[in-house]
């Protein structure tokens, strides 16, 4: 057994420069926790950065693995359903970027707040939505998380404000949520996400100004997946150091493919906010395997070789899996079992999403207003008078 462990340690030491230091050994089959060396973050206007030696417990590892795998499979199933025309309209898939959503959520609480753009299925899940509700929303059924009325880009749950279709528009909203947190003194913060394409929007800079001026507890996160639709970062931005674009806001550049890096950086950022220091900006360097949306094949502006290289060298799920296996934190069979369970969950959800009925026509005009007496809504012609309740 000792030989096995030392073999594993040697193998692990060669892997991706992540040297494992076994800190605890129990008599149980698996190692309960291990310390990992992670990539150092680039910092901007910060005296120190997040820790580079992090502890991952077996339970945490299994949970991150399961969550990321669920998100991955869910997105791939959405791809399938879209091609079968069961999902329609816009569909922006998140596969490849799982470490971002999972790492962030691992560092904050469900009582914190989060807002993002349209590549939102993963966040809907980490924020508490179920796969069933998410898929049924994609297929436009009454069991969907927004009762079928929102679709792919407009999913919401408690303390998760979507799901926003207009590039960059969610950033001022995120600062507003942070303002509410400060106003109410509840020690909550808001994670406010946007992409490399949105980073050049004027409203982002207006938001930076207000957040810094008023010391709002907001973590701005730029998910830099290198392409704004079909435009690479070099062709869109005068400066691609997105973590520095806050100018007077401290920043971190983080390896967004490593869930532990994302988690540590997010923890660091959350501490910064909660200690009253004001906003902080994180750039997560990540990658999307799919094109911008389902109508973009994703290979006219980047090569298949590039996509394949990222998949083979930096896949977030593979990286976590390798770490856990090589540190004896889980077995191949155990992880396979999780895969099987995840697959079943996705299949069940897809089954529900394709068989649940569409919303009833009576729901057409509801939810225009909140807490409002019922009102009459004009239909397509003057004789069509429809009813709207809150």
């Amino acid at each position, binding site marked *: 057994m000792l030989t096995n462990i030392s073999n594993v340690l040697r193998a692990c030491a060669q892997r991706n420069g992540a040297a494992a230091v076994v800190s605890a050994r129990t008599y149980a089959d698996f190692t309960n926790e291990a310390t990992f060396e992670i990539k150092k973050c680039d910092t901007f206007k910060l005296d120190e950065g997040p820790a580079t030696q992090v502890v991952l417990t077996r339970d945490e590892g299994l949970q991150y693995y399961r969550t990321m795998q669920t998100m991955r499979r869910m997105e791939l199933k959405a791809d399938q359903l879209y091609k079968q025309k069961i999902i329609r309209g816009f569909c922006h898939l998140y596969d490849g970027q799982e470490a971002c959503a999972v790492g962030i959520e691992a560092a904050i609480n469900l009582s914190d707040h989060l807002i993002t753009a349209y590549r939102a299925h993963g966040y809907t899940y980490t924020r508490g939505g179920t796969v069933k509700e998410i898929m049924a929303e994609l297929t436009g059924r*009454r069991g969907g998380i927004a009762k079928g009325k929102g*679709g792919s880009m407009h999913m919401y749950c408690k303390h998760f404000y979507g799901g926003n279709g207009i*590039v960059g528009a969610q950033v001022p909203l995120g600062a507003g949520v942070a303002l509410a947190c400060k106003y109410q003194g509840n020690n909550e913060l808001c994670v406010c996400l946007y992409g490399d394409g949105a980073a050049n929007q004027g409203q982002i800079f207006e938001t930076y100004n207000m957040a810094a001026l008023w010391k709002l507890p907001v973590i701005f996160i730029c998910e830099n997946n290198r392409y704004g639709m*079909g*435009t690479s970062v070099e062709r869109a931005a005068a400066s691609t150091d997105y973590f520095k674009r806050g100018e007077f806001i401290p920043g971190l550049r983080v390896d967004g493919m490593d869930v532990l890096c994302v988690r540590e950086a997010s923890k660091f950022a959350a501490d910064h906010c909660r200690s009253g220091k004001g906003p902080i900006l994180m750039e997560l360097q990540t990658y999307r395997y799919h094109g911008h949306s389902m109508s973009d094949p994703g290979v006219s*502006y980047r090569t298949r070789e590039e996509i394949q290289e990222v998949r083979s060298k930096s896949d977030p799920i593979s990286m976590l899996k390798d770490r856990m296996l090589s540190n004896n934190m889980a077995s191949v069979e155990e992880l396979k079992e999780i895969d099987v369970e995840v697959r079943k969950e996705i299949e069940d959800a897809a089954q529900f999403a394709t068989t649940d009925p569409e919303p009833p*026509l009576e729901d*057409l005009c509801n939810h225009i207003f909140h807490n409002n007496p019922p009102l009459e809504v*004009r239909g*397509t012609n003057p004789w069509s008078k429809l009813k709207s309740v809150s």
Partner: protein
Amino acid sequence: MAASLRCFLRSGKVTVTVRDALNQAMDEELERDERVFLMGEEVAQYDGAYKVSRGLWKKYGDKRIIDTPISEVRRRHAGLRPICEFMTFNFSMQAIDQVINSAAKTCYMSAGLQAVPIVFRGPNGASAGVAAQHSQCFAAWYAHCPGLKVVSPWNSEDAKGLLKSAIRDDNPVVFLENELLYGVPFEMSEEAQSKDFTIPIGKAKVERAGTHVTLVSHSRYVGYCLDAAAVLTKEGIECEVINLRTIRPMDVESIEASLMKTNHLVTVEGGWPQFGVGAEICARIMEGPAFNYLDSPVTRVTGVDIPMPYAKILEDHSLPQIKDIIFSVKKTLNV
């Protein structure tokens, strides 16, 4: 590509999609006047989000076809004639201050010194399943403002002729396309295939002559009106269908002339009812000589007064269907 298409089919009509017609218009105007250039997200190397600008970057290069970052296009270009593409008009709201306060009002504020020969173009209105933030019709919003011209083509001839006119116009033109029409082929006359073919802004077209009722519409719903007319003719109801082509300045005279013949008017649009295109038509009719020719109040067929839902069944019921037009015609005629 456009040139070879013309060469290949020199005699008679050809079938051209709206997308290709728009592409031809831009190609011809880029060739004709080197001050014309196109800018927008993904218009160059990606060939356009909806492929409307396909091939133009290859032909004209970086100087004339410019990919912009996602900062909604709103710049004045002294002496140049920009075509600014909005990936959809929903995004134009982020630039709307400049469209109205800079583009629309500058000629007036400068007492004619500074012209703004700019075209804002892109898809407008509902598509299929793109939900609330991507489905709004902006015809009424833009047409409300003096200083702007607002054009809404239906078929390929409209698209080509009106876009060429818009580019040649020395004033800001909001050019409202429709994504669902891009791939639809229409016949294009020999005349329309010419490089000098333009359609005047501000003039409607009678697409179908009729005697019992006037249907007025713009963009995609012109097609719906013609379909409704085809059904109604079997029941002995002859509809006159007017394609507005331009929202502002609106060709009210054409509507009045038709109404004075048919005595009944139904307007059809995809936008919301309140303060919309149909509402404006009603007001103008009341203010003019045709009012006395009405045998019944004007009927407006519009989108339902709600944000656009995603689910297909709800979306289908949020917009006018052909049966809604037929129903409204019959109610208006009291049959």
